[in-house]
Each structure stands twice: as structure tokens, then as C-alpha cells.
């Protein structure tokens, strides 16, 4: 087996791997939380719409 780099010399590779992994995970969590916010927004809109409708029905 050929070892090209001295054991201490390959630390940049290690950090690169971990940084990429964490970046991808955070990116994914960010992406899902944005979708979650979108869902929450639709939920509030729906609730407000229903309340408005309920009020108008009581009024009539």
C-alpha cells in the first residue's frame, strides 16, 4: 500500500470532509424549515379565512 501523504499532512482532507457534511446537513435543515414556515403560513391563512367566514355567517 502506498501512503502518499505523511499522516499529519492529510488533516485538510479530514476537515474538508466534515465541513462539507455539516454544510449539507445544515442546508437540508434550512430547506425543510423554510418549507415548514410556508406550511405554517398557509395554515394561518386558512384559519383566518375560516374565522372570517364564521363571523360573516353569524352576522347574517
Amino acid at each position, binding site marked *: 500500500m502506498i501512503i502518499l501523504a505523511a499522516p499529519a499532512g492529510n488533516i485538510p482532507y479530514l476537515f474538508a*470532509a466534515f465541513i*462539507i457534511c455539516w454544510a449539507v446537513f445544515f442546508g437540508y435543515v434550512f430547506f425543510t424549515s423554510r418549507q415548514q414556515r410556508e406550511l405554517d403560513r398557509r395554515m394561518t391563512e386558512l384559519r383566518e*379565512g375560516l374565522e372570517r367566514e364564521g363571523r360573516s355567517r353569524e352576522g347574517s
Partner: protein
Amino acid sequence: MAAAGLLMLANTYLIFMWAPTEATLGHVQRILYIHVPMAWLAFFAFFVVFVGSVMYLWKRQRRWDALASSAAELGVLFTTLVLITGPIWAKPVWGVWWTWDARLTTTLVLWLIYVGYLMLRSYGVNRSQGALYSAVLGIVGFVDVPIVYFAVDWWRTQHQRLVIGGATLEGNLHPDMRTTLFFSLASFTLLFLVLLWQRVSMKRTETELEALEGSQELMGGRSV
């Protein structure tokens, strides 16, 4: 979510501080502690896709499709990271970024199949059709994996161009390394399950929302 985050932090501490440094490979060997668990979980995710797809075709309930598609998303995410960390490990150790060996090639083919799965979902005409078609691919893809592996394995043994020494990822492991690896596997599994649960419940909320919005539009139409 918080528990998974804490466990991942503890995991990072173990990987960098506690696990002994590999004598011949040096620090880069620590990639193993994230690479191997992610690879196992990716395969597990595709197994979940298969189960979800079979159940969806059988029961035709949206929740099985939500499970299968969420697992496919996470499986592609993990496989992508496996395909990124693998070459980063291989370059300093083997001297090349990539080699067409059986495991690497199978992983790449697997990744392509499930990227196709996700594309098929987003290009479908409507949701139930997308669910149906992707369930078909979820089954075909999973059945195909062992055949791909055998084919590539036989093919490699016939075209050995690059001889790789004994430095496989799971070589002889020190007990402490083994402990770290299993701790890492446990924390990645928890992370996977948390993310999976989150995605599935999000898709369920979306389904309910769509149904409610639909009925609200109907009611609005009647009142006018």
C-alpha cells in the same frame, strides 16, 4: 431534534478528541466514522423506500408514499455525502479520487436510480400519479441493487487495473475506534429517524392543508 443535535456534537467530540489516531493513515482515517454510518443508513433508507413503495401499491394510502418519498430524499442526501467523503478519503490514502470498484460503482448507480426517483416525482403530472410511478421505481431500484453489485464485482475482477492494498475502510479497528464507530452509527441513526419523522409529518400536514383549502374553496363558492 435537540437530542439528535446533542448526540451529533458528542459524536464529533469522540471522533476528533477521543478516538485514537490511526498509525499508518493518520487523521484522515477519522472520515470513516461518518462515511461508514452514512453509507449504512443510505442503504437502510432505500430499504425503507422499498417497503413504503410496496405498501403504497398495496394499500394506496398517502402516508406510505410520504414515508417512501421522505426516505428517498434522505437516502439521496446520505448517498451524496458518502460519494463526497469517499473520494476525500481515497485521495490521500489510495492516491486517486475515484476507482471503479464494485462498492463505489454500485453506490454511484444507486445514487443515479434514486435521483431519477426524485426527478420522476417532481415531473409527474399530478401527485397520485407521481406517487404511483415513483413506487414502481422504488421497487425496481431496490431489486436491481444486488444484480448491479454482482455484475460490477465480476467485471472488476476481470479488469484489475489499480491494485489497492489492505487499506479498506473497516480494516482492523482498535476497540476505542470500534466504540466511536458504533456511537457515530447510533447518533446518525437518531438524526436519520428525526429527519425522516419530520419530513413525513410535514407531508401529512401538507396533505391535510390541501384537503382543507379545497373544502374551504367549495364552501366559499356556495356562500357566493
